């Protein structure tokens, strides 16, 4: 019997000696880069085996939550910092400050705090929307929404829709609230039931009604359809800049978002952080996770991520270096980034998406008027926030 146990121990020894790490991310277009990072990490850490999995953005969120109810969960996730609002569900580990690279921008790091503790290691920043245009169609980009509205006949005659927009996604709608001077949250308070939200809804619908935008538009519109010249302008994510550049080349133009009645049009921005759900950082794999945390924060990978993923590094040294050598597109992108509204890490911002979406849908389908719709949004989001604020067993 003793001999058999020794034999089993011998057979399973290799797997015992190697720490298996899993990393989920929703940056599918950069999976190759992540695999390369994993390979380099694995090569430099023979006793650690990192496995990288790419998910759809929303699927990954749900998978993290679901896994929170199971014993088995991923060790690490690369996610937007606003997901920290799911803290009660995802149970991210508190990360000691010393783990954070010293060159990480302090303001950025602030956004990784939840319940007073660092819950994620900032990796990159950006995630903002860009106002792209097709230079073969547009000589001079518009500087106001009214100008865009005025041009619509010109474009429609050519069977070109003026603006590509992922119409039903709240990430695209929310900047319109800010353009009217509002914002869905103030701290932990939901501030959707406001005249600004109503105006935003009405304007947003108006754009569709006059065919400046198409209600049916989704990700395809802002990407491939825009690249094919079906749209003159596109509100696309900064993360899609590289794909747009590859498709349009020099025809791709980037401009600041047009102003709405003298108000700046501010898209949202966010940080990508490395977090450890279900408190994995403090678990059995702590050492391996710590090693990877330090590994990934290296300036090398900050630079690589910027080059291949079109995100801004959180490392000030690297960022400053990049800005020194930035081209016009990058400068404009960064300028737009700076003119963006930051998404705080709070249950309020986490809660808004679902409730806003429902109210938005009811309004767009004429089930509710704008005023009732924002009331519904407010109620719904508040309820959602309550859920997120609830402490789970």
């Amino acid at each position: 019997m003793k001999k058999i146990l020794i034999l089993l121990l011998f057979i399973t020894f290799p797997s015992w000696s190697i720490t298996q790490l899993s990393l989920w991310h929703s940056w599918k277009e950069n999976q190759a880069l992540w695999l390369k990072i994993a390979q380099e990490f694995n090569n430099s850490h023979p006793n650690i085996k990192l496995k990288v999995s790419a998910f759809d953005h929303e699927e990954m969120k749900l998978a993290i939550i679901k896994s929170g109810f199971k014993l088995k969960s991923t060790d690490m996730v690369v996610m937007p910092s606003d997901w920290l609002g799911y803290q009660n569900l995802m149970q991210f580990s508190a990360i000691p400050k010393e783990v954070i690279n010293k060159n990480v921008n302090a303001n950025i790091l602030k956004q990784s705090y939840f319940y007073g503790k660092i819950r994620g290691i900032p990796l990159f920043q950006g995630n903002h929307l860009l106002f792209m245009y097709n230079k073969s169609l547009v000589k001079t980009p518009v500087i106001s929404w009214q100008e865009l509205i005025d041009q619509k006949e010109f474009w429609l005659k050519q069977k070109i829709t003026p603006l590509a927009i992922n119409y039903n996604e709240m990430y695209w709608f929310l900047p319109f609230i800010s353009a009217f001077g509002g914002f869905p949250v103030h701290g932990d308070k939901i501030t959707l039931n406001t005249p600004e939200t109503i105006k935003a809804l009405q304007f947003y619908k108006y754009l569709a009604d006059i065919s400046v935008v198409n209600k049916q538009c989704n990700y395809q519109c802002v990407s491939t359809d825009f690249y094919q010249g079906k749209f003159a302008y596109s509100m696309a994510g900064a993360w899609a800049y590289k794909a747009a550049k590859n498709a349009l080349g020099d025809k791709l133009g980037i401009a600041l978002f047009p102003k709405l009645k003298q108000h700046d049009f501010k898209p949202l921005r966010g940080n990508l952080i490395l977090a450890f759900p279900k408190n994995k950082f403090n678990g059995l794999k702590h050492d391996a996770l710590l090693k990877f945390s330090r590994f990934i924060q290296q300036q090398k990978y900050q630079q690589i991520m910027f080059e291949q993923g079109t995100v801004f590094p959180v490392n000030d040294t690297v960022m400053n270096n990049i800005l020194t050598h930035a081209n016009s597109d990058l400068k404009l992108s960064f300028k737009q980034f700076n003119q963006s509204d930051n998404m705080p890490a709070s249950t309020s911002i986490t809660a808004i998406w679902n409730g806003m979406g429902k109210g938005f849908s009811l309004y767009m389908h004429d089930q509710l008027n704008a005023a009732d719709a924002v009331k519904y949004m407010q109620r719904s989001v508040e309820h959602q926030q309550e859920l997120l604020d609830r402490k789970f067993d």
Partner: protein
Amino acid sequence: MKGKLFRSLRWNLLIWTFSFALIPTYFLSNYLINEFKLIQVNEQIEKLKLQNANISQSVEFELKLLNSSLQQASLDADLVLSAYTAAFGNKARFKLNQLTANHSMLSSVILIDNSNWIAAASPNKAELINIESLAKLLNNLSKNNRENFLITVLNSPNLNHELREKGMALPIKNKSKLLAQSDHVLVYIYPLIFTASRHIDTGYLVGLVSIERIYQHWQHKLKNSQLISLDLNQSKIINIEQKHNTDNIQIQETLNIFQSSNKQKNKSIVIQAKVVKDKNLALSKVNSFIHHFQIITAAIIIIILLLNTFIISKLISLFNTLAITIEKYASGDLTPQRPKLFFTEINQIITVLAKMAERILQNQQELENRVEQRTNELQTTYDDLYRSNNQLKIMQTQLIEAEKMSQLGQLVAGVAHEINTPIGISVTATTALMDKVKQLEEYIENGKIAKSTLNNNLNNIHDCSHLIFSNLKRAAELIQNFKEVAVDQSTENQRKFNLYSYIQEVVNSLKPELKYYCVDIKTVGDKSLILDSDPGAFGQILTNLMMNSLKHAFTKQQAHAILIYFTVNDQQLTLTYQDDGCGIEQTELERIFEPFYTTKRGEGGTGLGLHIVYNLITQRLKGTIKCTSKQGQGVLFEINIPINDQ
């Protein structure tokens, strides 16, 4: 008129066709149609039952399927966590939308968290539904075992109203079909169960099925029939105001909605469905078919009638043609008629008649030829006969002439013979006389005559002269007789006379001859009878008869008797002459009236007596004479003479 109608082949055929074919067909078809209709009504009832049983099963099946889907969904982590967290909204909505898309009867499906907040719903607008009416049910369920699900029919006008406004759009676009509204909702409530952590109480998945929707679903599958009510526990949960129509087909079907929980195991919600179908509508196809059938039947009847009329007309026309043909034949026009007629049989008759006509024509021709031939033959025969007749006539004439000549010859011969002798003797005597005279003259001239010679000569001359005289006298008498034989045909001797007296005169005139015989002559008859006739003829007749009796029948040595008897009957004089002489032999009897036939030739008989009698009676008096006699028994002459009125 009626008689004419019934005697008309045309009308007979038409009436027969109509009465015995079309009318019975029409009534039979109507009877069959009614039977067919009855069968169809029963069939429609059965069909309606079957259809509704199928629909009921289909509804049951769909509701079971819905039950199963909802039950399955209640275990879906995305839904469970959506009610528990604020993260699964989109995913949950997507899955709820799938449920409403897959279950047409589902008015709405709602995800309710444990604070009775609608976390998600399909359709989206259902999130606005006021679920107060469900709260009691949810609370009850919450207090009891949460493992159970609940299916019940909830009477909630508000909820139903909410569902109409915020539930799934009606599957039937034509909302006018929804004539009834219900206050009831079939509610499915399933506790959300997170299989990874069963102790988590997240909320409920609630499926809402408006009874109106079941009604619609049911009604939608009905064709030409109406679901008029759905009853639950004998109270109506939906009802359509139906106009009272007794001409409806009504059936009832049961809908069992499976209801399972620990407490209510094997229990079902039983809903009674009443369906009516307008009989006319149910039988619309049948009626349409019957209508078409009737039209077709009528059309067929009309067509048959027209066709019959046409055929009968054709037939009658054929018969007419046939009749005309026959009439032509009958009228003698035997030219073969071969009109091309439609019917083979009639054509055959026509052909047969034509053949008959041909045959008759041929026969007639043959007959005519034969008649002509016969006529020719007869003509020839006639001509031959005519010629023969002429020849015969000629021959007859010739014969008569010959006979006449023969008779004349005989007569002449007789006359010659009679006269020849005395004349011959006279010639001879004359020759002798002349010889003697010549001799005497020679003697005288020569002067050598002796007295004796003279005397001898004179005696001879005397004798010769005497002989010549007597013979010439004889000849003269003969010629007189001949003259008498030639009867005078003139009527110069015609006069009225008393026959009896005349007979007596004749008898008396013969007395010189009678004196040599012993004869008793008796005359019997009407002594006053006056005849307007030729008495001379009577006289010659009686004279010749009496002279014949004397010369040929009587002997002078015997006494004889003659009876002359006459009577008049019917303008006819019958005169009988009878003697008791020797009679006449039969062979002679036939010739007694022939001229110059005599048994006493050379004895003074000339054979003309009875011939003269015969001629007198037949030619002068236009009468007849018949002679009967037997040898030795006398002779009887019966003479019949027509007489004029006195």
